[in-house]
């Protein structure tokens, strides 16, 4: 509470903020879900980083060439990128430009260290790097457990005890904002598909924190908003209340503007009369922004063009107000009166961060276990397949998929007393699978079940004067896959399926076959 008060006081005390264009901005944005041994892989660290990078690019005044995005890149890459940006910022400053360096990190932290995979970056080290950087304004945003420790090292006092100097010129100094206190965990939420702190910080930067209504979100406004919303959101959580903290050692005049909504003309406008918590959802039902406002000044949220749904829970919990809007280049005003009232159970917000979709493509082979079946009915075949995989749609940690494969082969049909007959074999297979992924670092194992169909056909050279034949049947079975994540979107995948086939033309036979596939998985819309 003291931090919030401090931020509010700070926001009120500082003079008008300078424009973004006055300052050359550099940003290092890192998302690191893997904290090494003894840690649980974070689900949304990379998504948090991507979201912040996007916001900084759209409304934060950071040029693409001045941004370094690191996803699961590890400690050495983090140090290299930081050093590079410091050097670039120093060069810019030497040329007479005002400079700002922002470092955002979402990931694990423990015992005073940021944990980037197997590597470590001490919070002391990071803070010292920022302190020593020859940059006018240095900002550290840490969304990790016990990250508040960075604000209490070396005797520096965390807010609310801060001091604002007012020499001539723009703001100068160091600001450190951490998502939780030094003895608190930072929490992710499946409901919003993000960490609480980053989610609220992002919402604030998009306009939710623009308490002054001037179309600019200052550092103090953003912190105040993120603090209030993070505390509010984690109030009843099993992980306990999470209190973001900050260290504000900033001199000069004016506050630091983190976001200027002017470049993004479109978005949603919540008029003066609007009051309450409005949640903005994307088409997949994921929360992309929130606005918590009181009646008074209007508030604009900068959003890229697209379709959104806005919901507000009624104060008496009797239902929701929901509105579907299409955002283009002009702001769309959200009026409560125009929103539809729906029961709570029709909440359009998807849990578990909404479903995640991926495409799998690969090739493989199929082989029946029974030799007689291989020689006389179904020779080994090669297959090429596609699969649509949907995760967290039926429930947390569950995935389902639809697959199709086409293939075939050639061989020799063997019949007693008859010379081998050349045969061409074609197959079309498809199915629906349900599996549960288990993440082990970058490796994900996925056992599951599948119900499929198989259409088989074979034909013979014209000289054999034998008719083409076909067979269709249902093939239930088991499936297992191992996927190794190569990049944020791309994984290498190997899959094995064991399937049952009931053959009933010549005689009733239960046959089993195995098919293996190796390929790549590409995550869509992450």
């Amino acid at each position: 509470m003291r931090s919030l008060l401090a931020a509010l006081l700070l926001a009120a005390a500082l003079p008008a903020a300078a424009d973004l264009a006055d300052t050359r901005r550099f940003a290092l944005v890192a998302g690191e879900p893997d904290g090494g041994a003894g840690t649980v892989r974070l689900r949304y660290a990379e998504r948090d980083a991507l979201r912040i990078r996007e916001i900084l690019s759209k409304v934060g005044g950071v040029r693409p060439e001045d941004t370094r995005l690191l996803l699961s890149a590890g400690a050495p890459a983090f140090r290299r990128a930081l050093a590079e940006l410091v050097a670039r910022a120093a060069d810019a400053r030497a040329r007479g430009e005002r400079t700002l360096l922002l470092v955002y990190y979402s990931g694990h932290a423990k015992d005073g260290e940021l944990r980037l995979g197997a590597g470590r970056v001490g919070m002391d080290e990071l803070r010292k790097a920022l302190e020593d950087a020859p940059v006018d304004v240095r900002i550290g945003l840490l969304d990790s457990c016990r990250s508040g420790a960075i604000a209490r090292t070396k005797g520096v006092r965390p807010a609310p005890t801060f001091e604002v100097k007012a020499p001539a010129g723009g703001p100068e100094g160091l600001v450190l904002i951490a998502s939780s206190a030094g003895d608190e965990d930072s929490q992710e939420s499946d409901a919003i598909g993000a960490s609480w702190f980053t989610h609220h910080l992002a919402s604030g930067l998009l306009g939710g924190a623009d308490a002054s209504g001037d179309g600019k979100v200052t550092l103090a406004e953003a912190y105040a908003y993120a603090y209030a919303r993070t505390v509010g959101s984690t109030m009843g959580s099993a992980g306990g209340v999470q209190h973001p903290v900050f260290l504000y050692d900033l001199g000069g005049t004016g506050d630091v503007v983190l976001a200027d909504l002017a470049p993004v003309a479109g978005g949603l406008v919540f008029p003066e009369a609007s009051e309450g918590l409005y949640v903005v959802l994307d088409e997949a039902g994921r929360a992309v922004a929130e606005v918590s406002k009181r009646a008074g000044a209007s508030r604009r949220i900068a959003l890229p063009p697209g379709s959104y749904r806005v919901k507000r829970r009624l104060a008496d919990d009797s239902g929701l107000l929901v509105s579907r809007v299409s955002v283009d280049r002009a702001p769309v005003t959200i009026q409560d009166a125009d929103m539809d009232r729906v029961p709570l159970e029709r909440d359009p917000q998807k849990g578990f961060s909404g479903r995640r979709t991926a495409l799998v493509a690969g090739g493989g082979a199929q082989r029946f276990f029974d030799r007689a079946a291989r020689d006389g009915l179904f020779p080994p075949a090669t297959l090429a397949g596609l699969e649509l995989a949907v995760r967290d749609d039926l429930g947390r940690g569950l995935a389902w998929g639809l697959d199709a494969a086409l293939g075939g082969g050639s061989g020799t049909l063997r019949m007693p007393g008859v010379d081998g007959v050349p045969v061409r074999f074609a197959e079309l297979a498809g199915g629906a699978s349900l599996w549960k992924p288990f993440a082990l670092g970058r490796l994900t194992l996925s056992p599951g079940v599948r119900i499929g169909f198989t259409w088989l056909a074979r034909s013979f050279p014209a000289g054999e004067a034998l008719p083409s034949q076909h067979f269709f049947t249902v093939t239930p079975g088991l499936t297992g896959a191992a996927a190794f994540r190569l990049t944020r979107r791309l994984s290498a995948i190997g899959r094995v399926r064991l399937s049952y086939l009931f053959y009933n033309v010549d005689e009733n036979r239960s046959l089993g076959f195995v098919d293996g596939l190796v390929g790549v998985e590409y995550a869509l819309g992450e």
Partner: protein
Amino acid sequence: MRSVNRLALVMATAALAACGDYSTEDLRFLVALPTQDDLRVEVPAQAGGAPGALAACTGGTADVWLRAKPTSDELNASVAFVLGLVDTVRRVPPSVREQDVRGWGPWDDERHPGRELRVFIFRTYPEELAGAPRHAYAFQARVKGTPDDWTTILAGTFDGASASRGEGILLLDFDAIRAVGLDDLDTPSGTELVRYDRGAEPVTVEIILGHEGFGVVDFGYQYAGWADGTGWFAYAFRNPTGDLFMVGAGFDAAGAGDAQIVFQTAGGFTGGYRHCWDAEACLVHVLDPGNYSCATPPCSFGEASACPAVPSSPFPPPPP
């Protein structure tokens, strides 16, 4: 018991979901039926030249041999007629599947409205075949709406697993085809018996026509072919004046040959002579003491040593 019931339910569901004609057993029955290639009579194409159209031959051309190719083509056409019926069962899956039986039909004959056909193939394993199967098949037809009044129009047996590796016999009954109304304008009468043996060299095909038809005379045609291209062919034809010529010719891979010719005039007179010819169908030796084969005696010329080495008939001599 519940688990047994569940298993039965699963099996029943799977059975209902499975469909198709993907049957290796069907193929085993089908490979026992002869194809056009199995029954083909093949004589060198050189024997198809028109008499007199070949390069000038000092001793004259082997006109009798030059009738061999057209005759073999017509015989092959008659076999194609038979196999056209057989091929029907290769186009549709069987309607009856039992351990050693396959059945097709009945289906309507498109070319003869009001008639329908059916086919059965039975498989047995007689002791004399030492484990190899014997297939017996029958093609039957009837006028639709006449229950149990099926007429067998084609019947055959085959010993061996594959028509390309065994021996068989089939009989096409043209009279039965006429009786059931499946005949066309060019349908001959009588029967056509085809006996073939592809189990060992030489491959043999015998076609016995009971009546003239398909452009060839009624005769017991015999063909034997060896892998090296040599062969033996017994055939018959009539000349424009109606005289019947019956020829037993051996030939080599190049088309040179040695034939014994027996003729019977329309008036009943019979005689015979020997022709030998080279690869150009030029006569190299004629043994014709009766001077039947030329207009200006003596017809005989050359030495027997000029005759090419050709196979002799592998068929047993006809009973006296």
